[in-house]
């Protein structure tokens, strides 16, 4: 009874005209100018740096090294806009190769850990075997280990076996570093699938392998996508792992390595550096904008990556 009474009072009070603030339909208070101004200020601070980079990448070498990018914004018609910087970095430098190398590294380094983790998550969630709890605990517990702990011993193994500078070597390295997180995310999802699903599949004569590929994987797409985007961006943007295990030679160097080496060698060639930086950002930005929804989920779960 009290509840009903409360609701009635609430409705009655709500019906009164609001006193201080204007309200939107959803009951929220409308934003005042101070709020709008501060939001605008933050948005500007978060976009202008990237904006400046983008604008500079379309200005020629004289302009970009002698005047600020904003002068071109204020007088867009007096500026000579050019695509030349992109042409130069993509044709004469190692940047095109680096772009391809980034793809060679990133795609398998995303698919391999997802595959291994999905199999493992299914095994841990739906199979009974000796050592299950212990192995799962170890796997997820490894989330706490920063990858710096692996560098020295792994480098020695890699130098001993000739894996340094090979794509297989870096695929496996990213796989190892990404696996605890991948298992953590996928286990959370796969263990929640309804049990009846598997039982009916087994009754129909499916083997666990078939049940896994035909049922579990398609149903786990949201979790797989979350991790895939997270890992894709992580690997694409990685610098340290590539620097240590893949190196800087031009036939294997990825975009971040190439970009850093341009900073070192031609740091004053602003027009080329900006174009190169933008080339390195295009793919992650597209992936990110297209799949933002999945990314937010992965971000929440992925916040624990060591």
């Amino acid at each position, binding site marked *: 009874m009290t509840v009903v009474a409360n609701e009635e009072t*609430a409705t009655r009070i709500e019906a009164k005209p609001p006193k201080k603030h204007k309200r939107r339909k959803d*009951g*929220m*208070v*409308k934003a005042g100018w101070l709020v709008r101004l*501060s*939001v605008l200020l933050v948005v500007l601070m*978060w976009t202008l*740096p*990237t904006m400046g980079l983008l604008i500079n990448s379309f200005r020629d070498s004289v302009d*970009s090294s*002698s005047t*600020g*990018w904003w002068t071109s914004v204020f007088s867009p018609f007096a500026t000579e806009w050019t695509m030349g910087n992109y042409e130069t970095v993509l044709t004469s430098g190692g940047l095109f190769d680096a772009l*391809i190398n980034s793809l*060679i590294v990133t795609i*398998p*380094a995303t*698919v*391999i850990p997802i*595959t*291994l*983790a999905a*199999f*493992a998550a299914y*095994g841990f969630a739906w*199979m009974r075997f000796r050592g299950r709890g212990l*192995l799962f605990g*170890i796997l997820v517990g490894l*989330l*706490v*280990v*920063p990858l*710096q*702990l692996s*560098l*020295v*011993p*792994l480098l020695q193994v890699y130098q001993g076996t000739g894996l340094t500078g090979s*794509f297989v070597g870096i695929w*496996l390295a990213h796989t190892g*570093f990404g*696996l605890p997180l991948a298992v*953590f995310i996928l286990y*959370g999802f796969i263990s929640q699938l309804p049990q009846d699903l598997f039982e009916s599949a087994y009754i129909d004569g499916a083997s*666990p392998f078939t049940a*896994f590929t035909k049922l579990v994987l398609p149903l786990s797409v949201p979790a797989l996508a979350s991790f895939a985007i997270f890992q894709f961006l992580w690997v694409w*943007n990685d*610098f*340290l792992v590539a620097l240590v295990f893949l190196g800087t030679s031009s036939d294997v160097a990825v975009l971040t390595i190439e970009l*850093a080496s341009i*900073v070192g060698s031609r740091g004053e060639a*602003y027009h080329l550096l900006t174009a190169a930086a933008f080339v*390195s*950002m295009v793919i*992650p*930005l597209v992936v990110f904008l297209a799949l933002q929804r999945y990314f937010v989920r992965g*971000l929440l779960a992925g*916040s*624990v990556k060591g």
Partner: protein
Amino acid sequence: MTADRVGLRMARAFLVVVVTFAALWFGLGFLSDPVAFEGMAPTVSKLTQAVIAIILGVAGIWALFYAGNTILEALPRRATETLRPYLFVMPAIAVVGLYLIYPTAGTVVTSFTDVPEGAGLLHNYTEAFTNPDVLLNLRNNLIWLLIAPAVSVVIGLVFAGLVDRIKLESLAKSFVFMPLAISFVGAAVIWKFVYAWKPEGQEQIGILNAIWVWAGGILADLGVLQGVEPVAWLQKIPMNTFALIAIMIWLQVGFAMVVLSAAIKGVPSELTEAARIDGASEQQIFFRITIPSIRGALLVVYTTIAIAVLKVFDIIFVTTGGNFDTSVVAVRMYQEMFRFRNFGQATTLAVILLVAVIPIMVVNIRNLRRQGIGA
């Protein structure tokens, strides 16, 4: 089941395995063979290699699992059932064993044993904690840790709280969120331009110095002060460390904002509505109801950024290379590894990093579980 059919299945399994391994072996050999691509134009050759490599990597892992399963199912039934779980979990265990467990143990052991003749087990640690350079790095890590997570969380929280009331909410959020897709190296380049410095008298091309000189000029005209010189933000000690921390904050606020914004939207509207009816102001609602309700999310965001900050490497390595007193433990570790080839010191620094990260990580994972995310 007749012996005949078992034999047939074994033969088939054997064939699948041989073909898989042969294909992988041949493919990888082909890829690393410099002569194979010689006749082609450079672009074509690069693209061909890329296609082969990606197919090998992606199809290879599936082929291996398929081959493994074929062998497994060819075995006698009892063995199949006993071994099946291990086909699913062991590959992952093996990879983390090689890439995380073995090296971590190796790092810890090396940090104690890789010492000069006759020195004690703790040699590397006493060395590290008495070396003024390392102490400087530790101090810098501490400054980063004190500033970056707190500021990112506060900006993210305030922005999430404010933007909630604005029409173009999702657009405004996208702008702040976007740096999350940018690499630390890319961000370092972006900010090098913001911090760019030209000698006094020349036109400034970095926006920060342009604003700085312009504002200083106005103040000088008003007679408040005597005009300001452009600042080399990345070279001037101690300003440069804060300039670098700003880059990290710029990268992390989006993460804080997204997580906190989701949490704020999860606060039951009955709560805030009731407070509003009781006459609470928007500020009171925000500080007394919203913030206490999203404590868990605040902790996750704070600890996550703290961990990222402790391991910070790229930003410093690319901008200053650790010069001008900006170096931190992770940069120092890289230099010990590659410049000085001092693996004892490098592993010691890694262990110090681990010891610093573990407590934060434990809080983080515990709290994540409480929030019901993940396992």
